[in-house]
């Protein structure tokens, strides 16, 4: 093998790649927060809903956590035009990843809500706390502390998972790397560079999330 590495052509495109990294974060953010809304309603419905609602949410969670997000997005992207719904690649990816993360977040949030015990609420009542006070000082800190670590892990997983948007032609980090590598034919170098960008991205996210967790909820999250 005589392969000469040439990183110069890739470094010349660094600003373009970093723009893609922003889009990656955008996809992850969107699907995280939209998924969190679904997850919140899902968790509440699973705990307090009637039988039909619980069954429905359960079916949703089981289906979406047991099938690949990639095929779900394929389905949205290729099958829905048959019934007259045309999605752009970006919306298809965000909708697919939102539905997917909603299913996972339903479970995570439910675990958090379940972790608040009745005794704690009773104690707060004995201490004469009002409803909003109880939520602010007892329930929310407790839930936050329980689910903060799984949530931040999940966000990082979403950052990595958003790379599959490239398959549908969304020009995020991986997509832009594919664009560049088809131009300069330096595939190994290009993908090595974006691998480093992904590592940096998730490291920064990990550290930032750990710091925020420590500051706001006194969670001892570990980065390594």
């Amino acid at each position, binding site marked *: *093998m005589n*392969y000469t590495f040439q990183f110069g052509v890739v470094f010349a495109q660094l600003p373009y790649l970093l723009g893609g990294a922003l889009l990656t974060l955008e996809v992850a953010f969107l699907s995280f927060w939209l998924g969190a809304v679904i997850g919140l309603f899902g968790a509440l419905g699973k705990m307090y809903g009637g039988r039909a609602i619980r069954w429905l949410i359960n079916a949703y969670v*089981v*289906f979406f*956590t*047991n*099938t*690949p*997000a*990639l*095929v*779900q997005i*394929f*389905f949205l992207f*290729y*099958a829905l035009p*048959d*019934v007259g719904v045309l999605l752009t690649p970006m919306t298809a990816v965000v909708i697919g990843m939102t539905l997917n993360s909603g299913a*996972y977040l339903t*479970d*995570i949030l*439910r*675990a*958090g809500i*379940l*972790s608040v*015990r009745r005794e*704690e609420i009773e104690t707060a009542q004995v201490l004469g706390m009002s409803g909003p006070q109880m939520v602010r000082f007892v329930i929310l800190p*407790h839930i936050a*502390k*329980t*689910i903060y*670590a*799984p949530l931040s*892990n*999940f966000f*990082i*997983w979403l950052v*990595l*998972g*958003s*790379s*599959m948007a*490239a*398959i549908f032609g969304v020009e995020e980090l*991986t997509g832009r*790397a594919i664009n560049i590598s088809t131009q300069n034919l330096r*595939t*190994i170098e290009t*993908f*090595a560079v*974006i*691998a480093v960008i*992904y*590592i940096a991205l*998730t*490291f920064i996210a990990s550290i930032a999330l750990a710091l925020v967790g420590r500051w706001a909820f006194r969670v001892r999250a*570990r980065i*390594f």
Partner: protein
Amino acid sequence: MWDRIVQEAPDFFTYYNAIFVLQAMGRTLGLTVIGCVTGFIFGFAIAAIRSTRARALLPLRLLVTLYVEIFRRIPFLVILFIVMFGIQAVSRGISLFAIALISICMVSTAFMSEIIRAGMESVPKMQREAAEAMNFGFMRTLLLIILPQAWKVILPPGFAFMVMFIKDTALVSQMGVVELAFTGKMFVGRGFSPFLVYGTVLAGYFVMSYPLSRLGAYLENRLATSRSRESIQRVWTGPGPVQSEPVGEQG
């Protein structure tokens, strides 16, 4: 849409198509199982190396930690691309399936080692020190003290990881390995309704991963110790099921 599905269904659900899909499912399962078993073996080695404390092994520990951190932070798709083009720069004779398998093993090693390490760390440090005081060697401590207690903590997230990996192998279809997600592309290319095709593919994945995730959940309930939950929550290995745990009990 419905009449199209009904009209195409007899052409779609034929004997040879069924065999084709089943073979593809077998390939998906094969990739997952081989990947997870290899990942378990190498991951175990990595976890064992990381549990040592000898100063002479420090460079090895650092190297192994670096490997784990790097491979857990790069998307699987990017790893696939790098491995594929890296290997093809060296030799052309390797099949796509082998390339996919190599990258899967590399990724699953990293994740499995974290799961196993969390399991090993769930055993209290005092026991390790007690074993040391009784002049147990490294292997004896590992096999007689740590593993008998750690496997309960390792197994449930191990299954959760395997379920995740069945789904992640779908990305392999992008480089042309004929596994379940690829059959979807192929059937759509032959002009079948995407509803029918991707519905079938989704059902295929569901059939494979649902029993496994049930088994994982069962093991989790069956084997759960108070120790296992806190230690698993400290590492992340993708979105697994989170057990509800009263925080107050930790003191």
